[in-house]
């Protein structure tokens, strides 16, 4: 008996391990998330950082009063803007990539420490752009787009070394001081060149000097490490070809095709545009960075005097970890493209990754979502396609060309064909189901009947396309010839090639079920559209607008309440940073107060009020905000699942509500305009109104915008409860009254 228990336990363990391993083996890439404790600088108020910086500036006696003022302004703007970036969710912390970046930076500072007040922080930035940048506060950001392009750790180290030089030399502050000085110069015209153009040139020249200095210092730092420098000139290649995807392979068109669905050759280019990259000797007069040729020459000049010793290496931290981190970044890139509505880039980048992992469902879903979104946009009447495939170099041009050339109707079929196959293979996947349902709806909108489609395989082109002589044979009747012509249209490559996209599926019960549901939805849609054009419908809309809604929702979560204070009178610094931060805190307090008064149960998810241990919440807010941003971009489309819908569903489950509210206030102090005219007018017309006229002139003018948008995050269904501008100051009473109004509309049945 004892033996059998051990045996069972062993079997259970093995089963668990096997199942776990198999799950890991099948797991797709999961979006990178922040981990560990939230760094202090993410949760410290910007105001506090600013006042520290001001104190620091005041200690430096050598600064003139004017310069101190400019420095303080820089501290104000940079602290608040950078903190917005930190809290926005695009910056990752304590994740595998950021940790690795930090370790590479440590290698760089090991022999030559940085003279910084605060420790250096290196973060990965979730952006597909190929870029890295640094702040004077001691932060360095490297985009995932940049990491995805690199060949080795030494290249990364050089980029970081370059950025460390920017930090050390406080380039951002110096640039700000320089630009401020230039702005204060009296405008004059020299040799017909406008003053603003002169200023731009001067600013660019200064910026290029800083970049050259950072290149030089970065290289010096690299020479002081054990990184191999021989391959450093290849960093210039990274910059030169940064507009290309992270790799360049011919696009595998079979990904989008099937036996019965072949895309016509006309959609494929015979030859893609050759890769040129950025011109080496580009005119950099109006650029912030020197051209590639001059940077490469400067680098080579230094490296020529230097020989790598035998102990130097391309990887000091770990070659394996570099590849793993690069792989993580590359896997993230299609998602970032998708999030930015760069559909063709997302399809191509995912197709590159599928070369190594041909069965990866996550990558296929990324393609499915890109095709889906593309079809949705193409079917939207208000949408204009602004892509230009002719500008694209390399193999990704094929996908750009395909999506650009394909008409809206065919784009729907292309997307549904891809999604349907995937959905059939993964019927339990909720995201694929949602995509399929919505694409059927698009199909029902673009093709009124399924008769457009054939359930049989297409005829073989060679067999059906009769030679001209046979087609013109006198033995064929008029109808035979028409029939032949029709058949020829539907063969692969024919103008109606798409009609066989669902061959063998059309009479399938599941397919029919989806189609019928979509048809019903389309009918309801049309009916509703017509209804709201009738007097009765218009009256109902008016009544709804007047009376507000009755949603009957007892619990919601409020995501990142937004508050912004603007002062139009201060043209250069319209954003009132300190007032904005204080106002945001106060706005949160008002939300809590009104929530309690209204009896609506609310959970406040706000980065500004998180504790250091609430990283999970931080990540949730990031995903919710990204989802909301997507919904905002796709506002005119019908309901669209988000690109990370599964995660959003999990978040909804966690907070025990499907309803998430995005609300905010923008407060504007307006510039007084032509009100002075009231005074002469009053004197002219009726003198006793002079006090009133004077009041009108001196009275401060305000405007506030309040919005409250409630989303059912599982379906994307939205209710705009508030989106109103008022000629009024954002007093507590105003804000509370409107919050209450929104909350009651949500709560009451």
């Amino acid at each position, binding site marked *: 008996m004892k033996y059998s228990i051990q045996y069972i336990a062993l079997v259970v363990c093995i089963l668990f391990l096997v199942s776990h391993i198999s799950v890991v083996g099948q797991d797709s890439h999961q979006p990178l998330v922040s981990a560990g404790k939230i760094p202090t600088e993410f949760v410290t108020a910007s105001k506090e950082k600013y006042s520290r910086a001001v104190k620091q500036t005041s200690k430096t006696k050598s600064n003139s009063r004017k310069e101190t003022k400019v420095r303080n302004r820089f501290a104000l703007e940079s602290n608040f803007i950078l903190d917005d970036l930190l809290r926005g969710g695009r910056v990752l912390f304590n994740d595998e990539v950021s940790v690795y970046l930090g370790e590479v930076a440590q290698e760089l500072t090991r022999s030559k420490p940085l003279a910084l007040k605060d420790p250096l922080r290196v973060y990965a930035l979730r952006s597909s752009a190929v870029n890295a940048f640094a702040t004077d506060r001691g932060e360095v950001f490297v985009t995932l787009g940049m990491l995805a392009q690199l060949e080795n750790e030494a290249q990364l180290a050089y980029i970081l070394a370059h950025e460390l030089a920017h930090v050390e030399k406080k380039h951002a502050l110096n640039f700000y001081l320089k630009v401020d000085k230039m702005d204060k110069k009296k405008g004059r015209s020299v040799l017909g060149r406008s003053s603003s153009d002169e200023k731009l040139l001067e600013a660019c020249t200064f910026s290029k000097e800083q970049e050259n200095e950072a290149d030089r210092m970065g290289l010096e730092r690299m020479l002081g490490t054990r990184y191999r420098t021989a391959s450093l000139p290849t960093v210039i290649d990274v910059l030169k070809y940064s507009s290309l995807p992270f790799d360049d392979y011919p696009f595998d068109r079979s990904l989008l095709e099937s036996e019965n669905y072949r895309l016509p050759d006309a959609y494929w280019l015979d030859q893609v545009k050759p890769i040129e990259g950025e011109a080496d000797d580009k005119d950099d007069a109006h650029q912030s960075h020197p051209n590639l040729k001059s940077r490469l020459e400067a680098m080579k000049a230094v490296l020529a005097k230097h020989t790598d010793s035998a102990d130097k290496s391309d990887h000091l931290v770990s070659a394996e970890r570099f590849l793993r981190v690069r792989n993580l970044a590359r896997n993230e890139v299609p998602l970032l493209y998708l999030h930015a509505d760069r559909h063709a880039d997302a399809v191509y980048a995912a197709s590159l990754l599928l070369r190594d992992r041909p069965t990866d469902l996550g990558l296929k879903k990324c393609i499915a979502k890109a095709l889906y979104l593309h079809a949705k946009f193409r079917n939207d009447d208000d949408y204009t396609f602004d892509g230009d495939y002719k500008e694209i170099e390399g193999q990704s041009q094929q996908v750009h060309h395909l999506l650009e050339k394909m008409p809206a109707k065919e784009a729907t079929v292309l997307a549904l064909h891809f999604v349907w196959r995937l959905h059939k293979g993964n019927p339990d996947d909720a995201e694929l189901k949602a995509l399929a349902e919505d694409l059927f709806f698009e199909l029902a909108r673009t093709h009124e009947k399924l008769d457009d489609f054939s359930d049989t395989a297409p005829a073989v082109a060679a067999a059906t396309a009769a030679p001209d002589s046979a087609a013109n044979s006198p033995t064929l009747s008029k109808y035979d010839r028409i029939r032949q012509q029709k058949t020829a249209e539907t063969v692969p490559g024919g103008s109606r090639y798409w009609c066989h996209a669902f061959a063998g599926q059309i009479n399938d019960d599941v397919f029919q079920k989806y189609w019928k549901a979509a048809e019903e939805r389309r009918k309801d849609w049309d009916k509703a559209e017509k209804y709201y054009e009738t007097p009765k419908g218009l009256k109902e809309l008016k009544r709804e607008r*007047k009376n507000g809604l009755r949603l009957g929702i007892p619990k919601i979560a409020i995501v990142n309440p937004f508050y912004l204070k603007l002062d139009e009178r201060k043209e250069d610094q319209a954003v009132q940073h300190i007032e904005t931060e204080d106002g945001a805190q106060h706005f949160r307090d008002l939300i809590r107060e009104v929530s309690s008064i209204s009896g609506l149960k609310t959970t406040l998810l706000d980065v500004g009020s998180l504790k250091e241990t609430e990283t999970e919440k931080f990540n949730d807010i990031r995903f919710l905000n990204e989802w909301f941003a997507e919904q905002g971009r796709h506002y005119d489309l019908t309901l669209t699942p988000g690109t990370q819908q599964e995660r959003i569903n999990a978040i909804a489950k966690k907070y025990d509500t499907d309803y998430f509210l995005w609300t905010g206030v923008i407060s504007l102090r307006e510039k007084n305009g032509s009100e002075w005219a009231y005074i002469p007018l009053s004197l002219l017309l009726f003198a006793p109104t002079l006090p009133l006229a004077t009041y009108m002139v001196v009275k401060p003018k305000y405007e506030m915008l309040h919005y409250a948008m409630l989303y059912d995050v599982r379906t994307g269904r939205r209710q705009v409860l508030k989106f109103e501008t*008022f000629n*009024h100051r954002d007093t507590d009473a105003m804000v509370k*009254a409107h919050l209450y*109004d929104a909350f009651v509309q949500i709560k009451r049945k």
Partner: protein
Amino acid sequence: MKHTSLLWALLIGLSSGLFAQAPGYLGKRFFVKPEFSSMFALSNPTAGNRGTDTYGGAGDRLGLNTRFGLQIGYALTRRSALTVEASYMNTGMIADAYTPSVQFPDGADYHYLFYNLGGPEVGIAYQTYNPLRGSIAPMGFFTAWRLRMAFLSGKVIEDQISYYNGDSSFGPKPLDTDASYNQFTVGVEFGQNIIVADRLVLSISAELNIPPFNFNFEEEGSSGSDNQSYFDYAAAERMRWHSLFMFKIGAGYLF
């Protein structure tokens, strides 16, 4: 009490029947507001001051037209409220009158009369709140349309008599005037209710009231038999200027 209950029932019935929404500041739809209205009387008399009419040597002080009131309101919708109001006003009025001379039946004694004209008023107003200013009844900028009925009575404060033939030995005959006057006005008010604390509202407004039915009064008669119409004319004239334009301030309580 019965009437009050009926009124509330009517108000509540109206609101829930016609509109179903979230008016009221943080759900508080009822409000009670003591109010004070005033405006310079300019040349007109007031309760304790005969204005610039210096007949008999009095007057010359700049007086104020005043009204004290209590308003009870209910926010019907987000953009409207209904109020019922009760107020009291008291002002001064100069009127002339003639009474037959006691000594000379063909002659008449002349009376220069300074009245206190006052009494209760009741009104009903419909307030609309300006959505462009973010107002939600009963908070924010509003326009009120008002019907008001004043039940006034005059009390002679001073009666300076010029006797026929200058002989005052027999005294005057009594005035045969019914010194009461009812006036109906329609008004419009522009103002703002400012929330100053949780339930407290400060209200500032300007109102314009016009009597629609007695615009074309002619000054009639110069004998004792027309004293009534003369009184009515003087009262209407005085009331027209008293209530024409007033600034109003009030402090309200929301519940």
